[in-house]
Structure formats: structure tokens, C-alpha cells
């Protein structure tokens, strides 16, 4: 079975690892913000049982430098480019989407509405999507947080606001203390919890959203094996994003494709919607059930 495999935003830099980038069906950039951000001071990461915490703080050069000097180099890789954008107001999202709308090299814009490491915009997720929608005709994927009582409600809201797809899920806030000092392991205290421990939470979110809206879904959260991909696909995801697994296995996408080719138990995927830029053929939901 073949399902598009992307990286999860912020978990991979295509420019430093072009071979790895070409092993992906699309490259998702680290979240870009209107202005350059230096990010949080170290320590920014800490491993915990079953996963890791991060508080990178959206370090990025800002949209100007991104468009002028990074995007052109990404384009040379010849991999579809998804640009993740983040901001602190509806205007921020609108401004960046407008900038990217003109860039033919950008195939999808992912709206990071859910970074646990930065202050939240005053507007609701739906309002941010509305602003972004008005600024571009490119496919818009809304990336949601699992930290909500009823994610289906959020999914319906961003769908109504004009989102073309969903990216599920972002990290959830977590904290770990040093056993010696009982001080937080991260400079910022709490950070985003990712990795295998996030998997059951991600599956519940994908399931809830797939039932709630008819949008294509990029599923992510602890994906590490072909079996994890089958789980997401059978719940309604049309593609998957690899995050934390790329830190231990840069070639995970290739490995997982191999695992998916090996005949396993046939599964019946939930009715899926093709991810933008991928024909249903290239993301053959049916192949899953027929294998």
C-alpha cells in the first residue's frame, strides 16, 4: 500500500539533508513567522519515557528571508513544498498567505494554529483560517492541537472557515523535571510532548475529525512504523507526517514504505479524501484494503 509520507513541520530541514527530503512525498517547512524569531534559549529539548519535549519556540528567519533565499533553494530539490505559517494575529496569517499566494513553488500552506510554545493569537482558530482564506487560493491545511475537549468542533469550525484539509496533530503541552534538582529540564519550563506516547491521542483526534468533516487529513503523532500508518489510514487519514521518528531514523519514510509493501492483514480504510497535490491513484486508499 502506498500513502503519501511527509515530514512533520519543524522535524526536518530539507536543505541540510536533500537525500532525505527526496525520500518524502512532500516537504513541510518549519513554521515561518512574519518576522525573524531567534527562538527559545537552550535547553530546548528533553527526552521523557515514551517521547520527548521540545520548546524550540519557532526559531525561523521570517517570511522575507524565507521567500527570498530559502524557498528558491528548496525548489531545487524538486519535492512538493508545503509551507507552514504561524503568527500572532489574523493579520499575520493573512499577510503571509498573501506573500505565498504568488509563489508557484508552494503547493500547500499549512496553518500552524496550535504551537504550544508560543503565545496564542487573540482570534479563534476559525478567525485565523478565515483571514488566511481571504488571502490565498492555495490549499490551506489547518494544523490543530489535541489539547481541546472536542476537536471535532474545531475541525468543523475551520472547515466552515474555508480550510481545505487538516493536519492532525500538533504536540501537547508537557513538562519534565530533572530528578536531581526538581527544576524543569527545558529553559521555558513546559514544552511540546511528541513521539510514541502521543500516538493514542493522535489516533483519537484523527478518528473524531474524520467523522466530523469531509476534509483530507494528514495524520501525525508518534508514527514510527508501517503499522502506525495503517492505523491512521484506517481511521481516515489520507497521508501521514513523520516527526520525532526522523530524529532516530532519517530514512524512516523509505523504511515505512517497505513495511507497507510487505503483505499484512488486509484493512478497510475509512472513506478518504485525496491529499492536495496527490491523485487518489498516488494515494490509493483502495490498495490498503486489497492488499
Amino acid at each position, binding site marked *: 500500500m502506498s500513502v503519501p509520507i511527509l515530514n512533520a513541520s519543524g522535524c526536518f530541514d530539507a536543505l541540510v539533508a536533500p537525500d532525505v527530503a527526496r525520500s518524502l512525498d512532500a516537504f513541510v517547512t518549519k513554521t515561518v513567522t512574519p518576522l525573524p524569531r531567534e527562538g527559545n534559549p537552550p535547553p*530546548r*529539548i528533553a527526552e521523557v519515557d515514551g517521547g520527548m519535549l521540545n520548546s524550540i519556540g519557532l526559531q525561523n528567519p521570517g517570511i522575507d528571508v524565507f521567500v527570498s533565499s530559502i524557498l528558491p533553494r528548496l525548489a531545487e530539490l524538486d519535492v512538493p513544498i508545503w509551507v507552514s505559517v504561524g503568527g500572532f494575529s489574523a493579520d499575520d496569517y493573512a499577510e503571509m498567505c498573501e506573500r505565498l499566494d504568488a509563489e508557484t513553488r508552494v503547493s500547500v500552506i499549512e496553518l500552524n494554529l496550535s504551537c504550544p510554545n508560543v503565545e496564542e493569537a487573540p482570534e479563534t482558530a476559525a478567525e485565523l483560517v478565515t483571514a488566511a482564506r481571504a488571502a490565498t487560493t492555495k490549499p490551506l491545511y489547518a494544523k490543530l492541537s489535541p489539547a481541546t475537549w472536542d476537536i471535532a468542533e474545531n475541525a468543523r469550525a475551520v472547515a466552515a472557515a474555508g480550510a481545505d484539509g487538516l493536519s492532525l496533530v500538533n504536540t501537547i503541552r508537557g513538562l519534565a523535571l530533572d530528578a536531581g534538582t526538581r527544576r524543569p529540564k527545558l529553559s521555558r519550563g513546559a514544552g511540546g510532548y511528541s513521539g510514541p506516547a502521543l500516538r493514542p491521542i493522535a489516533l483519537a483526534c484523527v478518528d473524531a475529525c474524520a467523522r466530523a468533516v469531509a476534509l483530507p487529513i494528514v495524520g501525525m503523532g508518534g508514527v514510527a512504523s508501517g503499522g502506525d500508518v495503517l492505523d491512521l489510514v484506517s481511521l481516515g487519514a489520507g497521508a501521514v507526517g513523520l516527526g520525532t521518528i526522523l530524529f532516530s531514523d*532519517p530514512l524512516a519514510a523509505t523504511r515505512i514504505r517497505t513495511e507497507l509493501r510487505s503483505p499484512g492483514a488486509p484493512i478497510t480504510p475509512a472513506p478518504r479524501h485525496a491529499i492536495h497535490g496527490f491523485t487518489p491513484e498516488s494515494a490509493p486508499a483502495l490498495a490498503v484494503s486489497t492488499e
Partner: protein
Amino acid sequence: MTDACNSLLLAGREARRQLLAVTVNEPIGPYTLLRLERGGLEPGVPGQFFMLEAPGRTLPRPMSLCQAPRGELAFLVEPIGPGTRALCALEPGAEIHVLGPLGNGFDLDVARPLLVAGGIGIAPMPYLASALGNPPAILGFRTERQAEVGVLLPGAEITVEPRLVTELLPDDPGDVLACGPEPMLEAIRRRVPHAQLAWESRMACGYGACFGCVVERDGWFVRLCIEGPVWREAA
């Protein structure tokens, strides 16, 4: 396929990833010398590091190459937490994924090399010494037991706290290549501005993917894994 040796371009250099078997895992003082079959991996330049799979942990752990015996790669591991303890507990025959070599190693084009290391900072020194024809070396340790690892660097001058390695630096130390705890590296930088220093930070990926390992350089946070870990401070 993960058992195959995979080659990939990382930060402009070739690195390889392969599942490697443990040949020997022997304690030296409080440390463990973890020897792995080399497989298709290159040892790289002294000061470069490898990401070692730590069984049962989510993230691999960065380790400097300590020795490059024929057909093997040897790492000196200090058990300070779950990952390094898992590595120290590996039995011969066990297999772990290894990625490398990674990062920038030491610049070997030096006239009068002097190796300086503190604690586990000795790790990259044996390999570095062999590349430089066993230059003079100064090693500092916190305990006598730690000092036992000095056997890996015959002829090195060894000091145990309270006396610090920096107190043993000659007035004209020449080309210092150092690795050790941050306070030691800071002290050396003050004494020897043009020294080559190998820094540490927590790393998730080791190849520029996560932005977790940053250190501040000229007012911006740069990724130690691909811009370091070795820096000649005043170039």
C-alpha cells in the same frame, strides 16, 4: 533494509547509517568502552560524532568516536542517565543503529598540538592523538577512579581535582585542541583564544533537523550538530 548500509548527504558531507553489532563492551573506571563492528561506516575526522541508538529510548545519543580499531568503531560512554546506561549495558552481539560521522571535527593542520580534556571529554582524544602522532596531552578528572581511563592516552599528563587542567597549561600552550565540561572550555578560551574547542549540548537528531542543540554564536542560535561541535574560537 535497515540492516543495509545507507549513505546520505547531511550538511554537505556524506554520513552512513547501519545496524551494527557490539563486539566488546568493557568497563574502564566509571566509563565503558563500547566497541562496534564498523560495517560500512567511515570513522571520519577526530572530533566528529555519531548518533547511537539507545535501546528502549525514543532518541539516539551523540557520541564522539574514541578509537577506530581495524574493522571497528569504539566509543567511550559515561553512564549518567537512561540512554548512556542502556548503551553501557549492551551485550556483545546486540545490534544498534548508528549514524555518522556527523558535524565538524578538529582541524588537524596544526603546528604544535596540545590535547586538553576534562572528564568524559577524553572521549575523542585517543582517535585525535593517533591522527596527530600522539602529541602531548593534559587530562583532568574529578576522581581517581575516573583517572583510570587515562590508560587510553599513554604518556598524557593527568591531574585530579582540586588541581585543574588549566593550571597545567604551559605559558605558550601552542595549538590547543580541547574537549570537556563547559567551565573548562570557557577557561581555556580565555587563556588560549585560538584554541579548538569541542562543545556539547543536548541533541535529538544530530543532523540539523530539530533545532534542539543550539548554542549562541554572534547573537543568534546556531545548531551545534552541524556548525560544531568543534569550533576554533578566534579564527
